[in-house]
């Protein structure tokens, strides 16, 4: 740590965010490596260090002798102020070296509201914001993560994006950069070659033209770049690289435990859920691999909890064998197993009992909507009986607090759908009081969290408008007055935040100016209520002459060229249109193991999809 930093650290909150030196962090001799990679998470340390992807890729790069990967997080505003006052540029935690000393700077883009943090971090590093103004080959600025499925709003700031899964393409990219750095190539020469790698998108090699009405006329590839960019997927999760240790933060982070991914993709096809389509096809990891890797990670970290992560944990075909395998060693070692993302329809008591044999965590379910019709529209294949049955089992199992997630503003939603949310929550309360063997001496609490629906690319709702701000406000109010139960608490997501999400999720390249303007006027950490400045954002749209409603609240036709049409995430547009039409008729689609819906994602995985393969088992 240098002296300048030492002097400001005592003055900021949680200085351990900025010191590095955590257990299992990797320090190398910078003179012995060819490529230095600064892996940036554009949010706070506590959020970034809870993210599994950054940990996997960190270890993966550091497993190479010729490269050193370090971590960078967005400094909290109190630290940023001190850094700027003292002329300390943004630095990486392991070496303390400024970002400008690195060959590659990679941002993982997890959500739309971190775009201003990306700009702020580039600026704190003393680098030009726009890719075109960074003329040297290095530092190369790259981006990955789910939001690069439509990178257009921030495409002007980055040199390239990596749509899809990073385990293989990261190494290929480092190899290529190493080669071109040795050759002394120009950035343009390098980018033309990089664009040939499957799973790399170089925005500067695509020209975008617009129609008079502001919609996209065409996206044209040039200099040999592919017309459509295919995302990368890893075919076999059992053999893909997995770290044998994880950095253990000094301070408490959001998910302070071993997180382990049990499968990728989702069989459900809920029509609002971007992740459910983006991460297809289904690929499962074997119970043996998961158990072995978890035990190793518990050994090297000292954590006392393993969280089995996926989009819908109960859809893992070998959940029971997996739990049996895990419990063999987790019980003697007093390790807790957390199983988030359980579905309402196959919540099983025996399974829960297995989990509670160690320790108990909270229960959250996501019915998403209050009426069957609405749940059918969004293809959330869950019935009211299942919700009640699940609640009953949970209460019988000793839980007295249940959290329910809902969305407001879904396509075709009516007032009745909204009022029924409160009624549904009330019926869950009734289930508790009708139970002869309910936990004695305790009340029940049903917490409903209602967020605002955000239409996202690569979902059947990508053509749908988001409900207007006034409309959302009215439905929030309606839900509030519909709730007559003191046992039911209803909370809402900040709707302005959802509005901006809707703008940027389906935005085009013209929005880069808006992001820049908002950032210059003080926007950052937009995902944090205490830092979110909605008026400044609205002013930025006005200054740039763009209407946010054009992006958020407009219905698109199936024939409109969408800003992300040149990206191929496997699922075909025909499939999305089919699903969109079925939604309009409130028709459901069975999940992938019941019947393959022909989404097309298997094509990107050599024609394979585990949902189909395991069809025979069911």
């Amino acid at each position: 740590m240098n002296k300048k930093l030492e002097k400001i650290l005592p003055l900021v909150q949680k200085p351990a965010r900025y010191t590095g030196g955590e257990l299992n962090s990797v320090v190398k001799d910078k003179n012995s490596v060819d490529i230095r990679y600064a892996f940036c998470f554009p949010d706070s340390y506590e959020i970034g260090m809870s993210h599994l992807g950054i940990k996997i890729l960190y270890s993966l790069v550091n497993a190479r002798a010729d490269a050193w990967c370090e971590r960078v997080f967005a400094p909290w505003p109190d630290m940023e102020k001190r850094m700027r006052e003292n002329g300390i540029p943004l630095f990486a935690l392991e070496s303390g070296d400024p970002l400008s000393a690195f060959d590659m700077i990679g941002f993982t883009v997890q959500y739309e509201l971190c775009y201003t943090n990306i700009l702020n971090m580039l600026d704190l590093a003393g680098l030009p914001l726009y890719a075109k103004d960074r003329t040297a080959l290095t530092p190369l600025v790259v981006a990955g993560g789910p939001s690069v499925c439509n990178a257009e709003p921030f495409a002007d700031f980055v040199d390239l994006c990596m749509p899809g899964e990073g385990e293989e393409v990261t190494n290929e990219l480092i190899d290529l950069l190493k080669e071109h750095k040795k050759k002394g190539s120009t950035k343009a020469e390098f980018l033309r070659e990089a664009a040939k790698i499957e799973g790399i998108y170089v925005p500067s090699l695509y020209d975008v033209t617009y129609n008079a009405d502001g919609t996209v006329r065409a996206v044209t590839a040039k200099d040999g770049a592919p017309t459509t960019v295919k995302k990368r997927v890893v075919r076999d999760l059992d053999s893909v690289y997995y770290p044998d240790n994880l950095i253990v933060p000094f301070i408490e982070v959001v998910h302070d435990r071993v997180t382990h991914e049990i499968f990728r993709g989702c069989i459900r096809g809920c029509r609002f859920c971007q992740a459910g389509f983006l991460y297809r096809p289904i690929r499962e990891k074997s119970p043996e691999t998961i158990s072995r890797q978890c035990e190793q990670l518990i050994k090297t970290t000292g954590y006392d909890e393993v969280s089995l992560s996926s989009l819908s944990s109960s859809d893992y075909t070998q959940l029971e064998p997996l739990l049996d395998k895990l419990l063999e060693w987790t019980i003697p070692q007093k390790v807790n197993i957390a199983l988030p993302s359980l579905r309402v329809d196959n919540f099983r008591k025996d399974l829960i009992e297995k989990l509670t044999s160690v320790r108990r965590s909270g229960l959250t379910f996501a019915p998403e909507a209050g009426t069957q019709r609405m749940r059918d529209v969004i293809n959330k294949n869950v019935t009211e009986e299942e919700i009640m049955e699940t609640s009953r089992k949970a209460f019988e199992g000793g839980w007295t607090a249940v959290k329910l997630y809902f969305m407001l503003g879904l396509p075709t939603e009516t007032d009745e759908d909204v009022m029924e949310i409160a009624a549904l929550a009330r019926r869950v309360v009734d289930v508790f009081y009708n139970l002869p063997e309910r936990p004695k001496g305790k009340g029940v609490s049903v917490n409903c969290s209602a967020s605002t629906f955000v239409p996202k690319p690569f979902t059947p709702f990508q053509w749908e408008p988001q409900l207007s701000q006034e409309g959302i406000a009215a439905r929030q109010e309606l839900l509030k007055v519909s709730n007559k139960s003191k046992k039911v608490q209803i909370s809402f997501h900040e709707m302005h935040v959802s509005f901006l999400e809707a703008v940027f999720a389906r935005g085009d390249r013209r929005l880069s100016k808006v992001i820049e303007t908002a950032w210059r006027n003080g926007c950052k950490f937009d995902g944090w209520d205490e830092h979110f400045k909605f008026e400044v954002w609205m002013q930025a749209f006005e200054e740039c002459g763009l209407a946010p409603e054009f992006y958020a609240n407009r219905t698109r036709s199936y024939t409109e060229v969408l800003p992300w049409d040149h990206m191929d995430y496997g699922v075909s547009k025909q499939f999305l249109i089919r699903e969109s039409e079925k939604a309009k008729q409130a028709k459901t689609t069975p999940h992938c193991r019941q019947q393959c819906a022909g989404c097309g994602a298997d094509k990107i995985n050599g024609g394979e999809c585990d949902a189909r393969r395991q069809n025979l088992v069911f």
Partner: protein
Amino acid sequence: MRDVRIWFSKSGAVKYVSHLDMFRLMTRAVRRADIPLWYTEGYNPHPYISFLQPLPLGVETCYEPLDIRIEGEIKNEEIKDRLNAVMPDGMHIVAVTQAFCKPAEAAYGEYKIVLDAQDIAADDIEKIIQDGALTVEKSAKVKGRKGTKTVDVSAAIHSYSVKTEGDTVVIEVTLPASPELTLNPLQFLESISNKYGTTLYPLSACRIRLLCADMTAFS
């Protein structure tokens, strides 16, 4: 089942680990070292790990006690070796002993504070301490509410020395560290800053050891 006292030092980045986070850090280290911990019975079994004297953020320590309750046969020397093999940088186990003193027997802390000689001269510090009437505001509960109270630092200083070493000024000071009154080196420095008129930031501050009321080492 028996209690052991683990004596550790911390320096570098680890000094910014708060008291609460130190607890989690040590719990995980003990798990990694595979030391047979004793767990409480009941619904939520947890180990018994207890820090005796909290250290403020940013203060290093040379010899700090921590008590854990263990089960089974394991020698103190082995506990020390196993822990040292899994400690993060900056954390070191100096010794593992029986817990001789009761936690409440700790009465004083001996500290070493290093300042930049460009910020203040040794003579100035000497004079400020000699002039007396050093005070500092401590947060405290006043009639059940959050508030502050003024602490007489001059009266609390047990002994001290100030000297110049190269381009640094080194203060060695013994301050109360008992349940009735605890003053940490940063509060001591703050009381000097208050008189000096500018805020002094230490290059380093370190607790050398804890002492009992009769000025023998806390053991």
